[in-house]
């Protein structure tokens, strides 16, 4: 009995120490999540009490052309930015894994852009992509391209421009890959080398399987990140031209804070959550076939 009493006291003490986080989590995360689910079935503007309207918001979303446009744009962006970003980051990480002079400088240079605030880097790229005066087009004209792309002013180039810009912030991903690469046992390369494997074969048969958990982690983070892209296009293009860079989260934000349709925005948020969950589950399911953990 006394032991039970002391265990209860220990639990209570533990909960007391945990309470700052627990209260914060319940008040600022759990309750808002639950409320947003309820609001997704309501007409709610923040200014008036929520008015229950069943599945109307979801029904309207299905028939909303801008919703599909924003969802399509987000999917295209994710399909372009995620695999390319992962490839570029992996390539850069491999280059930074080679022992050469000034390696720390290169690593710093690659990581630095990811420390630049989003607004600042957006302004920088806004000027780089400027169709008339931008450094990119000035350079292209200098090498003889008479009609360089309009980048952010051209519906065909605005999306690729944003994808290109997303590579600017790969520093974090590179660092994670680099940590994974440095964990690959040297003896595996030595064994492969003795067996006559070329560099490409060593990458394919040793490096990639060895860092597959890291690739998996970056894939999950990439799925979540690319499906929530917001700040950069919001600052750089405002969704234009002609909604060619109008992403899902931007439409969600506009519905919530500009049109004051919190219920509609909540429904969008839940659909987004379900999409992210489904894709993450798919990635997790497929990981059984291609992710190799060292203990297995």
């Amino acid at each position, binding site marked *: 009995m006394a032991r039970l009493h002391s265990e209860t006291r220990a639990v209570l003490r533990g909960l007391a120490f945990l309470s700052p986080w627990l209260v914060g989590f319940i008040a600022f995360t759990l309750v808002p999540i639950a409320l947003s689910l309820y609001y997704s079935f309501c*007409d709610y*503007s*923040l*200014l*008036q009490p929520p*008015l229950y*309207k069943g599945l109307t918001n979801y029904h*309207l979303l299905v028939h909303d*052309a801008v919703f599909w446009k924003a969802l399509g744009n987000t999917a295209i962006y994710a399909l372009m930015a995620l695999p390319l970003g992962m490839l570029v980051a992996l390539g850069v990480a491999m280059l930074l894994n080679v022992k050469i002079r000034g390696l720390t400088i290169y690593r710093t240079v690659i990581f630095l852009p990811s420390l630049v605030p989003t607004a600042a880097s957006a302004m920088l790229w806004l000027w780089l992509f*400027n*169709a*008339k*005066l*931008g450094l990119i087009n000035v350079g292209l004209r200098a090498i003889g391209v*008479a009609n360089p792309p*309009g980048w*952010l*002013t*051209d*519906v065909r180039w605005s999306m690729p421009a944003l994808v290109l810009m997303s590579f600017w912030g790969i520093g974090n991903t590179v660092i994670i890959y680099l940590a994974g690469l440095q964990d690959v046992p040297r003896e595996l390369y030595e064994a492969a080398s003795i067996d006559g494997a070329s560099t490409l074969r060593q990458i394919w048969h040793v490096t990639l399987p060895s860092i597959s958990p890291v690739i998996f982690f970056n894939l999950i983070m990439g799925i979540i990140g690319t499906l929530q892209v917001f700040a950069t296009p919001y600052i750089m293009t405002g969704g*234009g*031209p*002609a*909604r060619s860079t109008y992403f899902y989260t931007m439409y969600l934000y*506009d519905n919530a*804070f*500009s*049109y*004051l349709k919190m219920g509609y925005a909540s429904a969008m948020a839940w659909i987004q959550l379900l999409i992210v969950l489904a894709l993450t589950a798919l990635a997790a399911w497929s990981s059984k076939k291609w992710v190799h953990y060292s203990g297995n």
Partner: protein
Amino acid sequence: MASFSTRVFSGLKYVVSAALIFSAAALLAFGPRAGEEVPKNCVVVDYWEKWTGEEEAAMRQIVDDFNSTVGRDKHIFVRYLSTSNIEQKTLVAAAAGVPPDVAGLYNQDIPQFGAMNSLEPLEDMAVERGITADKYKKVFWDEGHYDGHLYGLVSTAYDIALYYNKSIYSEGASALRARGLDPERAPGTIAELDEYAHTLDRIDPSGRIILAGYIPAEPGWYINYTCIWFGGSWWNDGEHKFTFTDPGVLRAYNWINSYSKRLGPKAVAEFQSGFGAIDTPTNPFLAPTVAMVQHGTFFARFIHHLKPSMDGQWAAAPFPSYDPKLRDVTYCNCDVLVIPRGSKHKHEAFEFIAFVNRQDEMEKLANLHCKISPLAKVSEGFLDHHNNPYIRVFDALAASPNAHPTEPVPILPEVNDELNDFTQRLALQQVTPEEGLRQVQERLQQKYDDFIADQLRRKAMEH
């Protein structure tokens, strides 16, 4: 006997606790203090405003005037806070039940907030203080209303005219004269404006625009109201219907489209990408790469501050209309002072709003902001010493029967976004004016009907 590590930990605990207590005490003693000292026995009116920089400082002068005169006598103290995204912050504060007593919103927020019953009606308090329609230019009195209620009174106001660069006119004088145009005056009709613009355009052999006489998308802030210069309107307030397929609206968008067609969508897009914002010297009117722009009264302040050498080299005139008989057409816009529902000091808040609407204070603020006075009565001193040398043009336009307010539509943010998207697609030649307007009409009418249906259902449930 306690181990060494336990003793170290125990000692460390006291050191950390002492450090925390000391930091807290230091913060209390020397930490930040409220910026203003509130006089004793005063009701504090919290006033949130959107402005920063010079505009914020100008309003602070008015707040100080109030606090040192009427406020002192009536024991009211206005606490002024400048904040970005004013409408969103007011919205969130109102939802939380702690709104400011006065909020400086945009006129376009009035229908949206008013329709959601989140603003305090001001008509009774206004009548008590003799603030009536006849004291205002009609358009600005209307701007404060939605659905028969007065929800806001104007703090600053402006209207739109055509700014033209006299130096560029002089340089192109012979070409203008050759086409029978007078380089000493502004165009009188839309057809003339097109002629002037075409004559002043400078295009290089590759098709790149060096200088544009005029382009409707610069600055494009008022492009959604272009139809008023074509005798059209996209909103029928009597029937609560959008009228985007109105012939006047279609004429306006055909005209906007004609510039993109003539100059080429790619050339225009590239040309525009070189434009700086209004508050930079790379602004195309200052650069100067555009000879004529449609702008508000306040633009004169930017010209003077950013390029004083241009003083005297520009002029302003009424923006021309499609029909020569349709004269002195303008679009009017304003900032409004409102009392959000839930305000704890409504009467004191209105005391301040009424003070701002006094002729002397209103003219002082208007001149500091380089804007017009929304009041019907304007002093000669205000007109004579205003920072915009063409203030009489702007003042007369706002008083004209053809002065047009922002449409009182509660879904204005959606209307603006839809129209901006349509205008961009039009500029890129992705859609015809007829087809685009039909799509806009369909989408927005549906959204408006849904919004009204929800509000009616809400009212029915409340009853």
